[in-house]
């Protein structure tokens, strides 16, 4: 494909969108329960868990990527552990590796907005739902999640966007295999390395527009919700 007369390899774009989508869905399944558990935790160990979840925010991505390669290489403990259950695939330098890395790296972007949404819920409203005979799962899906939908939206958008913008972890865990694990951010790096500035410009512009639009979207969501509640 060519755009403005510049050759454009669309595979990294599609791959990036796929990884981001799968990561977001997985983090909804994993991050939301973690956020709920943390928000309800009364133990003093809570700070430890909160710090653990937030670690990817401050760690250099290469550190996370390094440990992931140690754990997930074909002889690593995680691969061996899964092997006991009949797993004989590979966890690094493929789509699975990209997703696992992204999930860990974007965890705080899902958990933190959800935690603050859960903590903002009124205890009385949850109690009222209980007394109307709503058991926990019933409450969770009919009261807790609908009332936390702002957190869900913000968390999902931030997770998606953050995954799209990732570089270090995906480079280390996914490698840079053209047509397989080369994501947009790495493709830009490659273009710059090879002095293909036109292609780098094009992909970078796409990223700038995408990121800007995402943030505007997040702020719009936040404003709409606070206006409605206010």
């Amino acid at each position, binding site marked *: 494909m060519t755009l403005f007369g510049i050759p454009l390899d669309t595979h990294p774009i599609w791959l990036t969108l796929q990884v981001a989508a799968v990561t977001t869905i997985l983090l909804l399944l994993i991050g939301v329960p973690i956020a709920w558990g943390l928000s309800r935790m009364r133990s003093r160990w809570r700070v430890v868990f909160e710090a653990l979840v937030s670690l990817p925010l401050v760690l250099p991505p290469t550190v996370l990527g390094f440990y992931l390669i140690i754990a997930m290489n074909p002889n690593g403990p995680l691969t061996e552990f899964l092997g006991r259950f009949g797993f004989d695939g590979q966890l690094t330098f493929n789509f699975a590796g990209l997703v696992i890395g992204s999930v860990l790296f974007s965890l705080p972007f899902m958990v933190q907005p959800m935690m603050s949404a859960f903590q903002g819920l*009124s205890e*009385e*409203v949850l*109690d*009222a*739902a*209980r*007394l*109307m*005979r*709503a*058991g926990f799962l*019933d409450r969770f899906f*009919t*009261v807790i999640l*609908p*009332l936390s*939908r702002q957190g869900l939206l913000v968390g999902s958008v931030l997770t998606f966007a953050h995954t799209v913008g990732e570089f270090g972890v995906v480079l280390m865990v996914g490698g840079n295999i053209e047509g397989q694990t080369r994501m947009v951010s790495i493709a830009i790096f490659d273009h710059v390395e090879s002095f293909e500035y036109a292609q780098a410009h094009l992909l970078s512009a796409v990223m700038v527009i995408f990121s800007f639009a995402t943030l505007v979207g997040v702020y719009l969501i936040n404003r709409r919700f606070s206006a*409605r*509640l206010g």
Partner: protein
Amino acid sequence: MFAGNLTLTVGEFRMASGDFAFDSDGVTALFGRSGSGKSTLLRAMAGLDRQTRGQLRFHDETWQDGRHALPAEQRDIGMVFQHAALLAHRTVRGNLDFAARRAPADRGAAIDRDQIIERTGLGPLLDRAVGKLSGGERQRIAIARALIGKPRVLMMDEPLAALDWRAKAELLDLFETVIRDFGIPTVIITHAPAEVERLADRVVFMSEGRVERVETLKEALGRVDSPLFTEEGPVASLDGHVEHVDGDPHRLRFVTTPQTGTGQPVTFQLGADGSTTEHGPRRLRVRADDVALARKRLDNISMQNQLPARIERIDTSAPGRRAVFLTLEDGQRLVSEVTDRAVADMGLDAGQAVIALVKSAALAR
């Protein structure tokens, strides 16, 4: 019947009820000052706090036994919180549906959804979002939602405390009639004596985290040191109903309900009260200050209510003041507050027949 002994610690506050037992039918008021443990006891009874310990039985069901508790969602309680606790993401109808969908199908055809909506006046609001409604409207939704869930017990935690006086009066009317008509056993928390006098059949007095005593309303109003009496002094509460005199909308009278087989209804003339159109059972609240005593009927006096009564007993209510407890012809009690000197001058004593002169009587509000 509720019987038990519950403890629950919330932060620094420890509620240890001690043994208690009271009938659950009719209306039970949990009464006490702020911080006396009323809300904590109610939460413990509803099973809303996992830290609750002790025993609780509702009729022959065990709701709490040590650490083991019947989950709150299985206790069939309809709850009205002080701030309504509506589901903000649903419309008024959505809130009612939430309760209806989870109500047991096999129970209580007596409580009909449409009837509840009509009684609570929610018809015009059904499709509104709950966010922008007034406090009174929100509480009407809360009570309707609680009733639609077909509860076996209604619990209310200071449901009127956050409302302005007009909404309070309207809601009190609604509670009184709804509780009576649907016949749901109710436990209500309040620190307003007037609300107790208006609604309650019995009072659970709480103080410093424990249940001090349980009394019928009649017992609670029958002692001069009752916590229900405020600076306005002793008060009597009479059961009866309101009717118009000769169909005149501006003249109202209150006719009491005899409490004994041989009792005769007693009639009070009321001042015009345009707000009262309801003709069902009501309660009349008469302050002891507003009741004077005479040996015989008086002519040429502005007091229209002159009621034959018998002196039950005379207690000292304050220095130099006596509370004279009277039994009316219908068997109900009135109380008059007079000076020591008046008692001595008139030679008043228990057992004597007197005429109670009632300056003004107000429908309990």
